[in-house]
């Protein structure tokens, strides 16, 4: 019989090193390092502090919108164990549904010093449940069949790709391939937030609205019965099923919440930037980067990831061509994967 031998020293050392390198704090350290590099680079390139502050504010705004999408991705991944590559296109769908709704409403005057009128708010209220229902309906005809057949997760991801391109083709057909705006040529009021940092009032609304939705999701998950059931499903689907949790209802609410958040996120992004049929596909990468950075399936991680990615995206534009913003998100994701694949909130070590 061979007893338990002590590990050779080199291997023990390697293990110790890798356990330090793979810890949560090293990922936090990596993010701090990125922040430090940015600060140093900005002083080296002579980017003014006000400009940097402004970009950080823009990053937080973008982070709020990304968080709405990332929450849906992470909820769906937690409850249904699938990578929903159609989620970005649910955002596109929300943005364009709003455009359609607003085109039939009589145009109103701008309200409360914002750049949009009542019809945007009406559209927001209508679009959120609509996208949720569409997401659930699409689940009924596609993903549910695959789940029932216990197909491999990649088959669901592939079906999601089909759904994504299907939605995009319909958007192309109905609205054309050009970009669009909710309000063409309407003045967009600006306020000075603090010395030298100016933002549009619309953007303050975007941030406030996304934060409100995030709080609502928090309350739903922590306080409501459905939220508790969702967390149970995410934790252990089989155990949840045998403890009598109505799986189908949880699935319904997961899609409703995820879809509604995506619809709102798409509308807010469209209000801030512009509407394009490809917008959702382009947002998919930052969304998943946020989710992976904050651990797939973890709601609070997704929020943390979304704001980090949003800030990195915006701040990077001070140094490189702004077109590479999403690429900056990608680089952060790859670095995070190298250091700690399970993300900030993941268990282990």
């Amino acid at each position: 019989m061979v007893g338990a031998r002590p590990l050779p020293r080199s291997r023990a050392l390697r293990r110790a090193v890798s356990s330090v390198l793979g810890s949560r704090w090293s990922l936090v350290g990596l993010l701090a390092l990125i922040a430090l590099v940015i600060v140093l680079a900005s002083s080296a390139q002579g980017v003014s502090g006000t400009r940097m502050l402004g970009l950080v504010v823009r990053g937080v705004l973008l982070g709020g919108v990304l968080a709405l999408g990332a929450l849906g991705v992470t909820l769906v991944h937690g409850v249904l164990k699938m990578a929903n590559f159609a989620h970005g296109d649910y955002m596109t769908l929300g943005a364009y549904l709003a455009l359609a709704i607003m085109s039939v409403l009589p145009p109103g005057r701008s309200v409360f010093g914002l750049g949009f009128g009542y019809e945007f708010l009406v559209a927001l209220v209508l679009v959120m449940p609509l996208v949720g229902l569409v997401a659930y309906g699409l689940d009924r005809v596609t993903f549910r069949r695959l789940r029932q057949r216990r197909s491999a997760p990649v088959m669901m991801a592939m079906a999601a790709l089909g759904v994504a391109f299907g939605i995009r083709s319909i958007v192309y057909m109905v609205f054309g391939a050009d970009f669009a705006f909710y309000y063409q040529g309407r003045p967009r009021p600006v306020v000075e937030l603090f010395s030298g940092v100016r933002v549009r009032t619309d953007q303050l609304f975007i941030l406030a609205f996304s934060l409100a939705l995030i709080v609502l999701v928090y309350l739903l998950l922590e306080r409501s019965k459905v939220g508790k059931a969702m967390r149970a499903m995410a934790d252990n689907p089989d155990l949840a099923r045998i403890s009598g949790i109505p799986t189908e209802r949880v699935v319904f609410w997961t899609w409703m919440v995820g879809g509604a958040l995506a619809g709102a996120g798409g509308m807010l992004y469209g209000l801030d930037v512009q509407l394009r049929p490809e917008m959702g596909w382009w947002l998919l990468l930052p969304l998943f980067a946020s989710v992976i950075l904050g651990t797939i399936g973890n709601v609070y991680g997704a929020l943390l990831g979304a704001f980090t990615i949003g800030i990195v995206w915006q701040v990077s534009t001070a140094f490189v061509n702004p077109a590479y913003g999403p690429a900056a998100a990608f680089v952060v994701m790859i670095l995070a994967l190298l250091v700690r694949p399970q993300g900030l909130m993941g268990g282990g070590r």
Partner: protein
Amino acid sequence: MDPAVLPRSVLLAVPLYLLLVVVLRGRSALVKHALAAVVALALAAGLSLLLPAGTISYVTTFLLMGSIYAVLTLGLNVQWGYTGLFNIGVAAFFAVGAFTSALFTLKMPTGAAAAFTQQAFGFGAPFWVGLLAAGVVAGVLALVVGWPTLRLRGDYLAIATIGIAELVRLVFQNERWLANGPQPLRGIPQPLSCLTGSGCDWLPGFVNAFFDPLAPRDYPYLYVAIVALVLFLVYTGLERAIRSPWGRVLRAVREDEDAAAMVGKNVAAFRMQAFVVGAVIMGIGGSLYAHYVVAIDYGHFDPLYGTFLIWVMLMLGGSGNNRGAVLGALLVWAIWTGTSFLVDALRPTLEAISPVLPQRGPYVRLLLIALLMLFIVLYRPRGVLPEEKVVSLTRD
């Protein structure tokens, strides 16, 4: 009789011959090749004489694009079909191959052209150098992407490949100095195009004389032979590799990673090898594409044409089956081109619904392809030609 019929049918016989070599079974090599050659020549000549020239030329260009897509699909089949690597950034390797090959074979612009075209380098190298360089650069890209992501779960790799495809798209869209930025890179040389023009000075006279009746617009007949040859080499190479112990390990990794690791296989290394081999093949496909379309820009490598279409081809044909991959590529390309007729036929109906719809007809095709993808995943996940039980080669 049109004097161009003879050289055209000889050129068309090449893909037919290669197809027959693949399809015919159970005869000695000499008999098989001779039989294939005779039948191919007879078939090509017969078709050229019987069918109207327009039809033949249409079928040729169809086969040409279908075969280029078949090369790309075979590359994806190594990654997904045999090894289970979920790469949804095919467009990245496709684009990198196409631009690499273009830059290697183009010369640096001089004089007035330099004002309109910027490129990082231009060697004016022959086609085959561009083709190999395309494969090498795409393979290196795969090495770089694969290193941090291949050891992770499938959906992480998927996201990383989406990321790399976006990054490649952004680079070719914004970096003017590299490959002329958002403007297309034009004038990519076509291999052996001298044969359809004034003749190649490095070839013996009788060859030039034989191909003399061909006009520049006959170039697809020549290129289809080249593409078919590359496709044939890739296909036979892969079939051999898949039946080798190496291919057996790839399938083991796909089916059960832990079991493969238990018997001492370095799972990460095999995944990386499959990823790189697939990417090299995609790069070669990109090169074939660039030299056919002559002018490329980043728009050609949209995730729709560059990735999604190729996935539908592989899924329809049958992942894990090289014949399926080729068949799927031709079938989906037939559906894709065929639906453009459908859209034309639907034009009055679309016009009745809304006057803007007919211009948006192409998107009807996108919807059909997306529905086809869903149909396959839901009802025919194994494709038209499902994976066969592969027995590794043994020595007789």
